[in-house]
């Protein structure tokens, strides 16, 4: 072991520097193994075993029985590392696996997610996170419960947190299962449970402290895994060294090709689509920003919902409870965004280069315009057809693959890119390890948010306020296992695609929590009755609307579909909260003084625990 002077926190740079070098060394070793003829299955296993083994080791080394360590990592995480951990916490299977595919298939309208999921951090930094850090709570419902007083407000916040986070966590466990199943060549259901075991190893013994340090490690793996293939493709296709700058030239070429191949005008025939089932053909161009009012409105509403959701999702907000000061919390939001942007700036480039690889007749790997017989012999087409991720349906029977005859699942843009572009298998293994890191790190944060709310707010604050630290931490761990198992059980039933559930989580969170959180800091007059009305009303209205649109057969109002139901929940929440607050008595002097205290960064935290 390396000798550390002055403890772990003082040596973070060295520890994670060595870790990064070690990981790169491992990748090179795998490349050598591949050249030496070791089978793909073995390489896949080694990638998963090595990375998950390291996360589990960090989890075990970070075990703790102190409540401050368990809930907020001792409040000693430096801003930069908290930024990295937040980025891993934030970037889920949806960001890593589904995002580039979404841009590929759905074009410009889909990029509203990119804008929403980054701009939300401006709200986090300016409206919420620093104030909650000053407050000194362990969980988000802890803030709601103390600021507004009373068990009912706390309980409402717990319920919304659980619903939003649980919706989200099943998608992550599902993602873990998908990647594990492919890399290890095992059934999906088994992959889900193996993934869960890894997730629990990282969080159970050390709570927030363990999750923080594994998330930093997971961020390093996922960002390396995401960037390498894109750099490789950009250079291989000859557009330039740095994909982020090279992509604009490539976009112009893609737009030419899309016009030529009839993207947006050649729709799949009804029979072909029926045969392809849920798989989709390319129907929207990469830069088709429509001028219609509806298109603009849909972009606007999606951006707004994702932003407000970012600023109310408890697993993100609670990361800023771990910094050493209010100032560090603010800076840490900046670092989070920086580390997130590293991946989000790359996703459109990946989508664009993948399009070139598939559509450009001058590129050897292209398939559109080739004969169906020739395309069907390609190894990656066969592999991914076998697992139902893509399908070629010769709709007009001319024996040539047209743009409206190639159906796929968006996820394969990231997962199959290395094979599509003809990169060595070691890159596929790397991408699998990255996808696993992304899904696991988010699942960890979410499970912890749920389990902490149940153990700290429901059990300790509401049910048994006299419980000692040891009992509380045991309860916290039991909750973690129970919620994890429930999540894995739901995930193994494969109810929704990865992204549908993710957007729902954002809308549940913003419908119920956004205004109670923001107004709790910014409006002294906000009181308990108003907050409770805002939480219940907003959440119920949003949930009702989602149910009606998704399952009740209702036509969405003004293009507000299931991805955007926060547009219904948020206004209801705001109006109820303001009206009910004004109709009832103003908060007592003590509460008002507490709000004034929150606004001053220096001095002791409000809650001492």
């Amino acid at each position, binding site marked *: 072991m390396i000798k550390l002077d002055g403890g772990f*926190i*003082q040596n973070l740079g060295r520890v994670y520097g060595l870790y990064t070098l070690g990981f790169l060394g491992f990748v090179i070793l795998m490349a050598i193994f591949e050249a030496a003829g070791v089978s793909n299955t073995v390489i896949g296993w080694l990638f998963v075993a090595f990375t998950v083994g390291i996360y589990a080791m960090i989890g075990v080394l970070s075990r703790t029985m102190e409540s401050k360590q368990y809930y907020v990592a*001792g409040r*000693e995480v430096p801003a930069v590392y908290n930024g990295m951990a937040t980025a891993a916490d934030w970037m889920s299977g949806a960001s890593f696996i589904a995002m580039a595919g979404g841009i590929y298939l759905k074009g*410009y309208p889909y*990029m*509203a997610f*990119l*804008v*929403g999921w*980054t*701009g939300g*951090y*401006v*709200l986090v*930094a*300016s*409206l919420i996170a*620093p104030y909650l850090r000053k407050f000194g709570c362990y969980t988000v419902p802890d803030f709601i419960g103390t600021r507004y007083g009373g068990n009912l407000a706390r309980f409402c916040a717990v319920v919304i947190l659980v619903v939003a986070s649980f919706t989200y966590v099943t998608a992550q466990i599902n993602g873990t299962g998908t990647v594990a199943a492919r890399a290890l060549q095992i059934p999906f259901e088994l992959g889900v449970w193996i993934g869960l075991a890894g997730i629990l190893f990282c969080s159970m013994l050390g709570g927030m402290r363990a999750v923080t340090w594994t998330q930093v490690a997971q961020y390093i793996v996922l960002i390396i895994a995401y960037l390498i293939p894109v750099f490789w493709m950009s250079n291989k296709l000859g557009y330039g060294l740095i994909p*982020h700058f090279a*992509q*604009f030239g490539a*976009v*112009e070429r893609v*737009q030419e090709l899309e016009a030529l191949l009839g993207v947006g005008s050649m729709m799949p025939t009804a029979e072909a689509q029926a045969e392809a089932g849920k798989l989709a053909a390319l129907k929207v161009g*990469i*830069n088709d*920003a*429509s*001028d219609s009012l509806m*298109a*603009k409105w849909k*972009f*606007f509403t999606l*951006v*707004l919902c994702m*932003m407000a959701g970012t600023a109310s999702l408890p697993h993100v907000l609670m990361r800023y409870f771990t910094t*050493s*000061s*209010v*100032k560090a919390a*603010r*800076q840490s*939001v*900046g670092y989070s*965004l*920086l580390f997130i*942007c590293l991946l*989000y*700036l790359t*996703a*459109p*480039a990946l989508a664009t280069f993948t399009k070139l690889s598939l559509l450009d007749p001058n590129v050897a790997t292209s398939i559109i315009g080739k004969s169906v017989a020739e395309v069907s012999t390609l190894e990656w087409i066969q592999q991914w057809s076998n697992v139902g991720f893509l399908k070629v349906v010769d709709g007009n029977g001319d024996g040539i693959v047209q743009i409206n005859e190639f159906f796929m699942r968006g996820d394969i843009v990231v997962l199959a890119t290395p094979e599509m572009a003809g990169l060595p298998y070691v890159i596929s293994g790397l991408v699998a390890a990255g996808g696993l890191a992304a899904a696991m790190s988010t699942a960890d944060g979410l499970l912890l948010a749920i389990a902490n709310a149940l153990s700290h707010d429901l059990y300790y604050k509401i049910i048994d306020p006299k419980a000692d630290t040891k009992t509380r931490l045991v309860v916290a761990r039991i909750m973690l296992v129970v919620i994890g198992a429930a999540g894995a059980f739901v995930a193994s039933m494969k109810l929704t695609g990865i992204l549908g559930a993710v957007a729902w989580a954002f809308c549940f969170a913003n419908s119920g929590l956004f205004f109670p959180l923001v107004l709790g800091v910014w409006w002294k007059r906000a009181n308990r009755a108003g907050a409770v009305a805002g939480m219940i009303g907003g959440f119920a209205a949003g949930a009702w609307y989602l149910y009606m649109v998704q399952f009740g057969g209702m036509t969405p109002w003004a293009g507000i579909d299931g991805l955007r139901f926060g547009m219904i929940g948020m206004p209801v929440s705001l109006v109820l909260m303001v009206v009910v607050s004004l109709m009832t008595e103003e908060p007592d002097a003590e509460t008002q003084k507490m709000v*004034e205290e929150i*606004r*001053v*960064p*220096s001095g002791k935290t409000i809650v001492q625990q």
Partner: protein
Amino acid sequence: MSSKQDEHWTKTKSLTTTTLVIWAIISFVIHWFGEGLNSDAFPGAYFMAGMGSQVAFAVLVFWFASRQNQIDEEFGFGEKLRGRK
């Protein structure tokens, strides 16, 4: 509330308002013009959604954090970092 606290909060509010106005322009106003950003020479809509807005948000957050810190220092509300354990 002391007048010092009052003044600190007034400045904080005005900084936050400025930040949110810039945020709203980058998030909503620019993208409302979607197709209008595109020209034959450059895919402007794609650029703004895929890169421009994101970079602008990151710069905005760092700028906000440093300005807010200056305000806190000015009123003596900056935090003295305790020695680490």
